[in-house]
């Protein structure tokens, strides 16, 4: 049984054409999958389904053996556990940052999962150090540059230590140095056994990470 299983998925926005039609995808735990496709081909829609934000009109989505649907996620506990296990970096980092400081934004996740103050502090500082954004810790996220916002948003996702990480255009907005660093970081994340699903137009990341391509 695959870790993530999408079977005959069909999805359409209000009375429009099907964005996804009879779509199938199997992903094993620890695998890296690149989702590619033209603009409007359904990459973001696929991510919304995989993260439980949107539900397919028909078809089955299974995550670690559980069928993920409206009924399953309506249960508060299931929803929280599912979102703890599946992290999502949105294409636009602006929508992910809402706290007064970078530190608070990154610490939001660890605080949510009931870690003690010391653990929250340690985990947040670890992540800030890993992402090389320690000097930004007391800055307001909305005053940062696009690349810095992207790094903070990524840090916020990884601070929850999810098992599956969906990244929508993770290299967009980063400079050459930032892109190189992120690719190296993702290599390590992959070798730690986490499942990566990446929507990208960049060959740079595909060449470096050993993964499978899913064309939409």
């Amino acid at each position, binding site marked *: 049984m695959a870790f993530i299983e999408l079977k005959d998925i069909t999805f359409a926005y209000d009375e429009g054409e099907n964005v996804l039609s009879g779509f199938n995808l199997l992903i094993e735990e620890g695998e890296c999958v690149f989702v590619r496709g033209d603009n409007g081909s359904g990459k973001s829609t696929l991510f919304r389904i995989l993260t439980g934000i949107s539900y397919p009109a028909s078809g089955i989505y299974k995550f670690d053996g559980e069928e993920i649907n409206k009924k399953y996620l309506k249960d508060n506990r299931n929803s929280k*556990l599912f979102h703890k296990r599946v992290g999502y970096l949105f294409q636009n980092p602006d929508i992910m940052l809402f706290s007064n400081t970078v530190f608070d934004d990154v610490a939001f996740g660890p605080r*949510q999962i009931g870690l003690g103050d010391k653990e929250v502090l340690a985990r947040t500082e670890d992540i800030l150090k890993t992402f090389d954004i320690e000097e930004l810790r007391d800055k307001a996220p909305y005053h940062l540059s696009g690349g810095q916002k992207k790094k903070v948003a990524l840090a916020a996702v990884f601070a929850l230590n999810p098992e599956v990480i969906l990244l929508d255009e993770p290299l967009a907005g980063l400079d050459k140095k930032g892109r190189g660093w992120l690719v190296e970081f993702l290599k390590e994340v992959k070798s730690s056994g986490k499942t990566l699903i990446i929507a990208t137009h960049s060959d740079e990341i595909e060449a470096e990470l050993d993964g499978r391509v899913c064309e939409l």
Partner: protein
Amino acid sequence: MIPDWMNEKDTYVPPKKGGAYLYKTMRSMGLIMSRITIQTGSEGKINIPAKWKIIVLLLSIIAISVTNNKTVLLFFAAATLLIIALKPPEVINRIVKNAFASGIIASIFLLPAFVTNPVGRMNNLLVLIKVMLSISLVSIFNHSTQWNHITRGLRCLHVPTVFVFILDITLKYIYVLGNFINEMLTAHVMRAVGKNKDKYGSIGGIMGVTFIRGNELNKAMYEAMVCRGFTDDYKGL
């Protein structure tokens, strides 16, 4: 490079409670706002200039407000029903919903007077009818006129440029900001995997960022307009 705890799986058992009433409310608000679609006014085959529609609408609302003559009210009610009946079913549904919603709100305000002053009940009923008729007319106008034509109509009626400009931008950005709030809440829910001890702080943050975003969008659009020759004299489309 990656911290040690990232090499291990967290053993996390989420709390049963801690679902957020406020998040749900704000999420609903975001959805409602994102549903406000701009430029949906279907003008039909007979194209009446927006300025005439605005004049007729204003005169009708004034006439409905000041009249005590039931025949005049009946005339407006009949005319309104006739216009509504000519609309597509989904538009009729929305107009009737708006009218009844306004009727319910007006009833709540009028209830004390209705209970305490039995003599004036007929007048209270008239006020209720006037409110519902006025809202129906505004809804009809809204569903039969495009936003850009409304702003052009207002310019033709010599409404100050600044007012028209602010109205135009506001109408357009309600939609954009509604979507933005919705997306922010979605991103928030994705990370709200436990009990949020600072619920109001998070909501305040979302509202603050939305306000800043609104300001940024406004500024960016103004600058883009200046780059395309805008000289503070707003002419509409």
